[in-house]
């Protein structure tokens, strides 16, 4: 009996011998539980988009040029912008083949865009906001010849905005292949959910839900063949597990570590860190239609109650940027002044003026990640010093945003991932209630701010545009319903065998270029 036990134990240990990653394979430990689909017209979450970008080529790609995200041609050679600023003509590259060998041409572009608009899911609003939708598609998107397509937008919006949006909506699918899988007019959605038909550097070899995603090199890729033959996304929902895998050499990078886990992980001799500025932020939002929060003085008091530095230094361990305006660092229109720091004399005075000398009770919503829960507890403690009693409720992110969309939250900690690298995206969301985004969800129906956002969107003179964002930022600080907690910093813990990760991740979450990774 004891012999049997000993034998089993020995065999179990032997099993651990193999398992080191081959040098042509790149393994990522990440939570794939949120992957719903890999259809480029439907996928919208950050990590699925990383996969989608590796599978599909686009008309416009964002590339980091001297640290600035710039729209560059991908499946195109160049584009022309008309004098009126509303017509964009894209000239397609010739000789490109899809992953199954079929040739790429304008008809694929037409099919892909129409498909994107007709399926009309989570991200189609980005294109619709520029004036192109499935009803006017035949007039606004025109195939001039086999390798030329023109788009007509409804306003002379700044090119950075248009091209930045195109970079996230113009994934081109292999129209012939996808058409053959069309089922009851669903545009092949059931098939593209877990198969790929694109011209990107990789193809989707396999996706086992909640287990792994396997990408393999696309033999017909028009650029040079990437070093990594295979990319594996391993589903590891627990961040502490991601770290264990990384340290044991079972993963090349841990994608979603908390600041603390990251600090612990990089102490390991085989692990190094990659830090890059992020294109997302974290905010505390206040529902301007609820109770005491209706009064801008109360909102201002809350902004003066929070200890931003402690959140950044102690909770995020320095892996965050103190940016209190809505325009992030690195974007045109960024204002570096941060007016808020904890001042409890001021909060008392403001609350007294507003008629709440003894403070008040309020509900603070947040989502289930470790970081958010920590932030909630910290902010609760900070608010308590100002006499405000916040009661925390933790919900799944989707649930939380649902409540926010119904305008029925009170205080809420959330985050915004930028949709395109332009101040307009942030301004529209955080200050223009007419766009139905964050400002609207907080019921901040402020016409002055909304007008300013819309004017800046089409302003062609850069100096005038800058002063508009400056004015808007100050106004927003005084009256707006948001306390911007920080701008995110992307930090990754990577195994030393991996080279080129920093170049690959530059511009995350907009882009992640797997072709730059090698071992």
């Amino acid at each position, binding site marked *: 009996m004891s012999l049997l036990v000993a034998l089993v134990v020995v065999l179990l240990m032997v099993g651990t011998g193999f398992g080191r990653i081959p040098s042509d394979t790149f393994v990522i430990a990440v939570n794939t539980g949120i992957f719903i689909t890999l259809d480029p017209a439907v996928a919208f979450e950050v990590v699925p988009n990383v996969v989608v970008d590796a599978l599909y080529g686009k008309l416009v790609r964002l590339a980091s040029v001297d640290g600035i995200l710039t729209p560059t041609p991908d499946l195109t050679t160049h584009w022309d912008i008309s004098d009126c600023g509303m017509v964009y003509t894209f000239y397609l590259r010739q000789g490109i083949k899809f992953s199954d060998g079929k040739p790429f041409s304008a008809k694929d572009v037409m099919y892909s865009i129409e498909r994107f608009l007709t399926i009309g899911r989570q991200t189609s609003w980005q294109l619709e906001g520029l004036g192109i939708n499935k009803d006017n598609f035949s007039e606004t998107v025109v195939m001039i010849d086999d390798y030329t397509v023109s788009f007509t937008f409804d306003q002379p919006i700044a090119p950075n905005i248009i091209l930045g949006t195109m970079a996230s909506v113009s994934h081109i699918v292999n129209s012939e292949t996808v058409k053959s899988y069309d089922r009851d007019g669903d545009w092949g959605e059931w098939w593209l959910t877990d198969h790929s038909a694109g011209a990107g550097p990789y193809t989707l070899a396999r996706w086992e839900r909640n287990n792994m995603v396997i990408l393999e090199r696309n033999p017909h890729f028009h650029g040079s063949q990437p070093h990594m033959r295979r990319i594996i996304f391993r589903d590891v929902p627990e961040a502490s597990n991601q770290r264990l895998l990384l340290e044991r050499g079972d993963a090349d990078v841990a994608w979603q570590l*908390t600041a603390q886990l990251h600090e612990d992980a990089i102490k390991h001799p085989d692990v190094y860190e990659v830090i890059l500025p992020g294109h997302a932020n974290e905010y505390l939002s206040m529902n301007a239609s609820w109770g005491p929060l209706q009064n801008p003085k109360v909102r201002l008091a809350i902004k003066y109650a929070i200890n931003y530095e402690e959140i950044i230094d102690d909770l995020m361990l320095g892996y965050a940027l103190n940016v209190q305006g809505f325009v992030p660092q690195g974007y045109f229109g960024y204002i570096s002044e941060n007016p808020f720091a904890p001042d409890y004399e001021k909060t008392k005075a403001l609350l007294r003026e507003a008629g709440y000398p003894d403070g008040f009770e309020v509900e603070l919503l947040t989502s289930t990640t470790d970081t958010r829960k920590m932030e909630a507890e910290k902010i609760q403690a900070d608010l308590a010093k100002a006499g405000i009693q916040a009661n925390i409720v933790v919900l799944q992110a989707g649930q939380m945003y649902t409540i926010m969309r119904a305008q029925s939250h009170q205080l809420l900690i959330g985050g915004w991932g930028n949709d395109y690298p332009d101040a307009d995206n942030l301004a529209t969301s955080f200050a223009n209630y007419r766009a139905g985004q964050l400002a609207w969800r907080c019921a901040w129906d402020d016409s002055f701010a909304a007008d300013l956002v819309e004017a800046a969107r089409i302003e062609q003179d850069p100096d005038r545009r800058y002063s508009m964002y400056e004015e808007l930022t100050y106004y927003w600080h005084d009256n707006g319903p948001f306390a911007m907690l920080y701008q995110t910093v992307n930090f990754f813990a990577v195994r030393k065998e991996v080279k080129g990760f920093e170049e690959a991740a530059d511009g995350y979450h907009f882009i992640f270029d797997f072709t730059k990774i090698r071992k």
Partner: protein
Amino acid sequence: MKSFEKTQTLKPYLDDLKHTLYLWRKSHLTMVGSVIIGLFLLVAIFAPLIAPYSPIEQDLSKRLIGPGSQHFFGTDHLGRDIFSRVIHGSRTALWIIFLVSVISTAIGTIVGVVSGFFGGVIDEILMRITDMFLAFPSLVLAMFIAAMLGPNLTNAIIAISLVGWTVYARLVRAEAIKIKSMPYIEAIRSVGASRLRIIVLHVLPMCVSPILVQMTLRMGTIILTAASLGFLGLGAQPPAPEWGVLVSDGRGYLMNQWWISTFPGIAIAFVVLGFNLLGDGVRDMLDPRLRR
């Protein structure tokens, strides 16, 4: 009654009590259980006096310190003293046990009495409803109810109560049926005793000891279910020091800061252990066959 008669009437009860105490002391494991639970109650009642720090006060300069003389169980990611949090968590646990026991016993007893006493169609319907609640593994049902009502401590208590009443219902129903058909009941009915009087004076007293046994046995399960809900995020919300939440807090820090999850887990195990031992002992003590 003269005093002699009084003592004579009281004597059987006193003897019984003495015998019960004797049985209690005799079983080692039951004593251990009682000691653990006694300790638990003391800690819960005197928590603010025992805990050296506040359970929710943060001190970011003292984050993630290991167990030591300043902080017996170490500190967590927000600099809170874990020992104090565990101590205060015992209050939450006690509160949960108390409320859930009362509510589920109440529901179960009412259902059981009505079902057993009145019988017929009412009995069938109520028993089918009981079956419906028993058709799920209890954690799944509790999760379902807690998720639907909204994650917070109150709803978790409601959810656990709604899952646990069936045991009492069946118990009380069995007793009610047994007593209903006894001859002396028919006798007093014929003299005009109302149903209510019979239920209160004759049925319920017979249920007391099996109910007590069940309650004690179930207390461990209640804590485990509450901790599971807290662990999954469906129960008490931060910064409440509920033990399940404390274990979940430490998940992201398991490797290097193992103390955050370990100590609350040990607390849960100990208290559940205590209730199990005590419950076994209570059952043995009150079981008529074993009292000789």
